[in-house]
């Protein structure tokens, strides 16, 4: 299965929106609970995973896709 530029842009846009919508969560928890609190640290991890996902989407090379990699793909 492969992905085209339009789909990749759409996924990247949605992921970026997701990142900006959740970016306040660690700050709120850090300000109110302190940066060492478990909730504040979990929020940092969560945002980190979203940022990592967005970074990978932005770096994804459409031309380097391995066509036929998925045995159930059929495309």
């Amino acid at each position: 299965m492969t992905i085209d530029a339009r789909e990749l842009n759409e996924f990247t846009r949605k992921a970026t929106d997701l990142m900006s919508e959740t970016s306040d969560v660690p700050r709120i928890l850090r300000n109110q609970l302190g940066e060492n609190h478990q909730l504040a640290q979990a929020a940092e991890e969560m945002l980190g995973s979203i940022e990592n996902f967005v970074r990978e989407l932005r770096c994804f090379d459409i031309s380097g896709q391995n066509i036929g990699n998925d045995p159930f793909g059929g495309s």
Partner: protein
Amino acid sequence: MYILEADFERLIRVLSEARSRATELAASIGARLGTEHRLAKLASVASLKIEGMLLEVRTSATGRADSSGGLAELHGALQTEMQPANPTPANPSENMPTGVHAMAAIATQAGLEPEHWLPMFVNDLFSQLGTSGGITFEVAERLLQQRKDDFLRDFLIARRMYRTYPRLFPEIQGEAGPAERQTISQ
């Protein structure tokens, strides 16, 4: 240090919406690139982190509400007062069918399977009403979101099962078109 009630509500709302979007995004990417693709896995990880965060915040909010009953009751009363008037009796659970019966009745009336999300959602609403004696738009939205997330999760599991163990679904294989059957038989 503690979190303000309004901040708890805001965090839960933001995380609940984010979880839904992340789950949808993970499902879309998985459908296009395969669930084993690096991007699909990263999307799933992000979705799981958001879900874990939401659970932790909800647990903290519940714990705080339990430990400060007076304020929570006042807040609940305020929320109930802010909702449109409804003909709910003083004790709503008295004249309400039990969960299973309500769900079965709703499903039968609508011609749906009892496992369909709609009767289950209505049952959630009844349960909430019976438990707290009131319901707000925010709670209803959250319950609907939970049903939607559950549906998406079930859908992803079912699709993975179907792709991995096609022989367990002979009736669906029979309905699939030629191209699909060819894919399934691999």
